């Protein structure tokens, strides 16, 4: 997937709460200049207002906000937390964070289609959640 670079894939032990998890999962995008500092705050604000809409499937979150909320270029970062992150809502837990920066409403659609296909394969998703290292994790999204 051309929006994912190996340097934007990471495995972390855990986060103290979901807000920290969002910040950590967006950090590679920020470092790369794909999003501004306000992007993570926009995601956190949206979730506080609307509920955990970024939890898209069991164990999987897709942190994202609107282009005008700080997305500069379309890019995706993948973070796997060894300890599942709790969104303080029933059912809303995630360990795989696929953070999406969409600079417009088109350029990221191919990548999202591929991610949907990956996540629809339950066996593959189970393997992703057990990835032993960054390289292995990256291979699943390549």
């Amino acid at each position: 997937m051309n929006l994912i670079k190996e340097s934007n894939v990471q495995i972390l032990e855990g986060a103290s709460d979901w807000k920290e998890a969002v910040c950590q999962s967006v950090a590679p995008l920020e470092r790369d200049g794909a999003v501004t500092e306000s992007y993570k705050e926009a995601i956190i604000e949206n979730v506080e207002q609307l509920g955990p809409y970024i939890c898209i499937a069991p164990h999987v979150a897709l942190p994202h906000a609107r282009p005008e909320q700080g997305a500069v270029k379309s890019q995706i970062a993948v973070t796997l937390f060894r300890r599942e992150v709790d969104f303080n809502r029933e059912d809303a837990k995630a360990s795989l964070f696929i953070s999406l920066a969409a600079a417009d409403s088109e350029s990221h659609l191919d990548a999202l289609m591929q991610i949907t296909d990956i996540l629809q394969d339950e066996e593959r998703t189970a393997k992703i959640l057990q990835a032993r290292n960054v390289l292995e994790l990256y291979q699943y999204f390549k």
Partner: protein
Amino acid sequence: MENIKKIMCFCGSGLGSSFMMEMNCKKALKSLGIEGVSVEHTTLADIMPGMADLFVCGEDLLPQAQKAGKAIGLKNLVSLPEMTDKLKGAFGI
């Protein structure tokens, strides 16, 4: 069968999960053999009553969707079986 001609999928941002739901919705309609239904995606802020015959969103946003009309809420946004099941319910088939 219910007369549903337009389905609007939406999420908090209108370009991530809503698009995933749109793709899944189209796949599910195809597998159910339902034709002639347009499916689009948008953001919660742009949802208006009457803009679609059926609204599709994540479970969390279901109360807002129901204010705009007939709606289904999904637990797993990428699950094809769940989408297919709930569409069956909405279409009454």
